[in-house]
C-alpha cells in the first residue's frame, strides 16, 4: 500500500506534536489521521483524552481519503505533505422549535431576544427559550424584513419592512412590554424587501422591488416629514390609516435595473445592495455614487458581509453560494463557490465571531453550516425544516436561527471557537 510522507502541525499549543515527518497510508481518512494524532498525544502525556480532529491541507478541509483529496487538489505526493489539524467543530445542538402562525420571512436575533417577521402581517419578539414576548401588528401586508436599531436600552427601537411599501419604526418598552409605532417610512412604490441599519444606529437603508435603494434616518423625532407625492387621496383619509408619523427618505439611490433583494452596510459610509439584475452594487453614502459593481450571472437573492474576513457572501437563484471581495474595482471575480445545495439559496449569514464560517438556507429545505476552507461539502447539514427555508441568522451568543415556509423557527446552539488567525 502506498505511503505518504506527512508532517502534522497545529496552532493550538495544547495539542502540538513533534515536528517530524510521518509515513502514513495514502488511503487514510479523517478518522485514521485523528487516531494517529491521538496516539501521539497519548504517548506524550498520560492524561490525554480522545479528541476528534479535522485536517486541513493547504487551507482546505480533508473530506475524503487523503490520496483522493491530493489528486483532486493537484498536490504532489512526492514531497512531505503539511497537514494542519484543528479540533473538530462540535455539531450544532438543536435548542428550540418556535411555531408561528404563518411563514417566517425574516429573523434577526440578539443575545436576549429574537425578532421575526411573518407572512401573517405581524412581527414577533421571542425570548431565546421560545416564549412569545410581543406581537407587533400594524402592517397591511406581509412583513418582509425586520431589523433592530437599538437593542440594549429599556427603550428598544426596531424596524419592520413590509410588502405594503412602508417601513415602520417601532419603539419597544421592555419593562412595560409596550410597543409603539414611531414613524411610518413612506417612499417606496413596491414591496420593501430588505432593511439594514448602520453600525451607529442613526441611519438605515432599504431595498425594494421598485429598484430603488433609500436611506432613512433612524432617529425618532416628533416632526412629520411632508410627502410630496401626488396621490389624489385626501390627506385626512391617509392619516387615519397610518401608524406613526410619516417619514421620507434622506437619499434615494437609483441604479439597479431590477428588484433589490438584499441591502447591508459594509462600512459606516458604504452600502452593498444585491439585485435581480445580476449585480451587487457598492454605494458611497456621502456622494450617492456607485463605487463598484460586481456582476454575476444569476439573480441575487441575498448577501451577507463579514467584517472579519472582509468578504461578501451571496446566495443566488442557483445552487451556489459565492464569495466576493467588495473592494475590487468593477471586478466580477468570484473568489469561491460553495456548492452543496440543490436549489436556490434564499439566505446566507456570516458568523459574527468566526471569519471562515457561515450558514445558508435554501429552497431545498436544508440549512447548511459552511467553512470556507471546505467548499465542496458543508460542515453540517441542519435538515429540520419540512418546507422552504426563507431566512437564517447567527447571533453573537452563538445561536443559529432559521425560519421557513413550514411556519417553524429552529434554533441551534453552536459553540464556535474564535478563529485563531
Amino acid at each position, binding site marked *: 500500500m502506498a505511503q505518504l510522507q506527512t508532517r502534522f502541525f497545529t496552532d493550538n499549543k495544547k495539542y502540538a506534536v513533534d515536528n517530524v515527518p510521518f509515513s502514513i497510508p495514502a488511503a487514510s481518512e479523517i478518522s485514521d489521521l485523528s487516531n494517529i494524532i491521538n496516539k501521539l498525544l497519548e504517548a506524550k502525556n498520560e492524561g490525554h483524552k480522545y479528541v476528534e480532529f479535522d485536517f486541513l491541507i493547504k487551507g482546505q478541509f480533508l473530506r475524503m481519503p487523503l490520496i483522493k483529496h491530493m489528486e483532486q487538489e493537484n498536490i504532489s505526493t512526492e514531497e512531505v505533505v503539511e497537514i494542519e489539524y484543528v479540533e473538530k467543530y462540535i455539531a450544532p445542538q438543536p435548542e428550540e422549535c418556535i411555531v408561528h402562525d404563518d411563514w417566517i420571512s425574516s429573523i434577526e436575533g440578539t443575545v436576549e431576544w429574537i425578532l421575526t417577521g411573518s407572512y401573517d402581517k405581524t412581527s414577533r419578539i421571542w425570548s431565546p427559550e421560545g416564549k412569545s414576548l410581543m406581537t407587533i401588528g400594524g402592517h397591511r401586508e406581509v412583513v418582509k424584513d425586520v431589523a433592530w436599531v437599538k437593542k440594549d436600552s429599556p427603550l428598544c427601537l426596531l424596524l419592520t419592512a413590509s410588502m405594503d411599501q412602508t417601513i415602520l419604526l417601532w419603539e419597544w418598552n421592555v419593562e412595560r412590554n409596550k410597543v409603539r409605532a414611531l414613524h411610518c417610512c413612506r417612499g417606496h412604490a413596491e414591496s420593501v424587501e430588505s432593511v439594514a441599519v448602520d453600525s451607529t444606529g442613526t441611519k438605515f437603508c432599504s431595498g425594494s*422591488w421598485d429598484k430603488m435603494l433609500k436611506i432613512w434616518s433612524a432617529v425618532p423625532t416628533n416632526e412629520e416629514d411632508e410627502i410630496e407625492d401626488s396621490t389624489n387621496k385626501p390627506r385626512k383619509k391617509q392619516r387615519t390609516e397610518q401608524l406613526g408619523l410619516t417619514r421620507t427618505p434622506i437619499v434615494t439611490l437609483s441604479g439597479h435595473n431590477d*428588484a433589490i433583494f438584499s441591502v447591508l452596510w459594509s462600512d459606516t459610509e458604504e452600502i452593498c445592495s444585491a439585485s435581480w439584475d445580476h449585480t451587487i452594487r457598492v454605494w458611497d453614502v456621502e456622494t450617492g455614487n456607485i463605487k463598484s459593481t460586481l456582476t454575476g450571472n444569476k439573480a441575487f437573492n441575498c448577501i451577507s458581509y463579514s467584517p472579519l474576513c472582509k468578504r461578501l457572501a451571496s446566495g443566488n437563484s442557483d445552487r451556489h453560494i459565492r464569495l466576493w471581495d467588495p473592494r475590487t474595482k468593477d471586478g466580477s471575480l468570484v473568489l469561491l463557490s460553495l456548492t452543496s445545495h440543490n436549489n436556490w439559496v434564499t439566505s446566507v449569514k456570516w458568523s459574527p465571531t468566526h471569519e471562515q464560517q457561515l450558514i445558508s438556507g435554501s429552497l431545498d429545505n436544508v440549512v447548511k453550516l459552511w467553512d470556507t476552507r471546505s467548499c465542496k461539502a458543508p460542515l453540517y447539514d441542519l435538515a429540520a425544516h419540512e418546507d422552504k427555508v426563507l431566512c437564517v441568522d447567527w447571533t453573537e451568543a452563538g445561536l443559529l436561527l432559521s425560519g421557513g*415556509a413550514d411556519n417553524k423557527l429552529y434554533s441551534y446552539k453552536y459553540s464556535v471557537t474564535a478563529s485563531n488567525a
Partner: protein
Amino acid sequence: MPPALADIRNTVGNIPLEWYEDFPHIGYDLDGKRIYKPLRSRDELDHFLDKMDDPDYWRTVQDKMTGQDVRLTDEQVALVQRLQKGQFGDASYDPYEPAVDFFSGSMMIHPVTNRPADKRSFIPSLIEKEKVSRMVHAIKMGWIQPRRPRDLTPQYYDLWAQEDPSAILGRHKMHVPAPKLALPGHAESYNPPPEYLLSEEERLAWEQQEPSERKLNFLPQQFRCLRAVPAYGRFIHERFERCLDLYLCPRQRKMRVNVDPEDLIPKLPKPRDLQPFPTVQSLVYQGHSDLVRCFSVSPSGHWLASGSDDHSVRLWEVNTGRCLKTIPVSGVVKSIAWNPNPAICLIAVAVAESVLLLNPGLGDLSATSSTDQLLSAFSPPEEPARQPVEWQEASAEEHGHGLRLRICHNKPVKQVAWHGRGDYLASVVAAAEHTQVLMHQLSRRRSQSPFRRSHGQVQCVAFHPSRPFLFVASQRSLRLYHLLRQELTKKLMPNCKWVSSLAVHPQGDNVICGSYDSKLIWFDLDLSTKPYKVLRHHKKALRAVAFHPRYPLFASGSDDGSVIVCHGMVYNDLLQNPLLVPVKVLKGHTMHRDLGVLDVSFHPTQPWLFSSGADGTLRLFT
C-alpha cells in the same frame, strides 16, 4: 594434459594415435618396451553401471597416450570449466587491470624521456619543399589546369512533361484497377460442410433457374479426398468470363462523392454556449385543486396570476411560491392575461361566457389606485351604441374580491389577449359565425366585431407587439390583419392539422405556432408564408408556446408532460436566417388525465420559465 605416471612415459612423440589403432600397444616406454593398451573388456553395460554407480564418472577421462583412465582433480575441472567459458586459464590473472598509459596526452611535470627533440621536428622537410616547387612550376607552365566544373545537364528528361493531361495519352493517369475476383467460399471446397451441400429439391430448383439468376454458378460437390477431385469442367468457361470482365470493365472513372455523414448535420452551437436558459426546477406553486389551464406573469415579474378548473384565480409571489390571494370565480378559467401596461394593474380573466377584469391590488399602490380611478372615471355616452357584448360593473361583494368589470358575451369565451399598450383587449368566443373575435376598448368601454366573414374556427389571437396587426389562428391557417386599414395582410400556411397556440416574437417579425399534431412551426414573416422551420420534438400535442421578451428563448409545453426550451436567435441582419437550437427538455409535471403541461410563459426579466400543468401545480424553472 596431466603428466602420466613416470614409469609409463610414452616416447612415440606427437603423432596421430590412430596409427596405433590396429596394434595391441600404443607406443614405447623409455626402455623401448611396448606399452600395451589396457584390457578393454568392459562393454556398454559396464559403462552404464559405472555411470550410475561411480560418482566421479563424469570427471574421469581416458589418457590417449597411455590408455589409462585419469580422474581429474578439482583444480583441473575448474580449469576446464573456465576454458569452456572462454576465460583465462589462470584464475588469478586479471585482464582488466587499470592500464597505466605511459605516453598520455596530458602534459606531465616531469618528461617521460629526457631525449632532446629531433631536428626534423623543427626544420621544414626538403622533400616536401621540392614537391611543392615542382607543382608550382607545373602550374606556371600551364601543365596543371584547374578542375573543370561538372556538367549539370540531366542525363534523362521527363518524356511526358509537355503532355496535355486531358489528351488521350493522359489516360494512363486514370488507371482503373481490374475488377477483383470474388474470394472462394466454403461452398467451393472439395469437401464442403454439409450445410453447404444442396438438397435434392434445392438442386432441382438450381437447375431450373436461369444461369444468370443463379446465386451460385456451380453445384457444391463433396469428394472423398482431394485426389478424387476430377478436372474442373468449367475452367475454360470461367477464364473466358474473366477475360470478358476485364475487357468490358468500364474504362471511365465514376466520380463517387465521398461525403462524411457528419458533415451533412448542420453546425449548431452547443447548448452550453447559449446560456442562460432554464435548466432546473426551482419552485412549485401548490394550491390549486384541479388542473391549471392558464396563468400570466405580471409585467414587473413580481406576481403570477393563475386560473384553474377549480373555479378560482390565485395570485402568487414569484420568488417564494407564496399564494397571496385566492379569488373565487363562477366557472372554469379558460384564459388569463395580465395587462402589459405597468401603470395599469388589471387582469383579464375568461370565465364561462364572460371576461372579468380584476384588480389584484398587488404591487405599486399608486398603480392600483389609479387603475380604479381610471375605471371609475368612465361616464357612459348619451346614446349607447349597439354593442355585441354587455359591460357590467361589479357588485359590492365582487368589488371586495377585486372584480371591477364584467364583459358579458353570450357564448363561452376561449381566450383573452391584451394589446401592448393595455387599452385594447381581444377575446375569442366559441361561436360558429364571424363574431368569433371581439375587440374591446377599456377606456371607452366599447366593443366591436372586426370581421365580416369567418375562416374556420378561431383558435387564438395575438397582437403584434409594435404595429397595428392582429394574428388570428384558425384550425389550419394563420392570418395577419391590419387593424387600421382593416384588411388581410398575410395568410400563413402552417401545414398542420390543428393549430393550438400562437406566440409572437417581441420584435414582431417571427411567429411560432404549436399544433395538436405535436409540431412547433416557426414562421419568418419576411421570408415566406410557408414555415421557416418545423420542430417535431414533442411526442404529443402541443398546448402552449411562448417567447421570452428579452432573451433569445422560446418554449413549448406539451401533453407528454415536458417543456422544451429552444434558443431562437433572430438577427437584425435581414440576410441571416433565425438560428433555432433546442437546448433543454424540462420535466416535472406529472401526467393527469392524459394531460401534461397546459401553459408556459417566461419571466419578463429573468431567463426563467413558468409552466402550469394538469397536476394542479405551477412550476418555475431557472
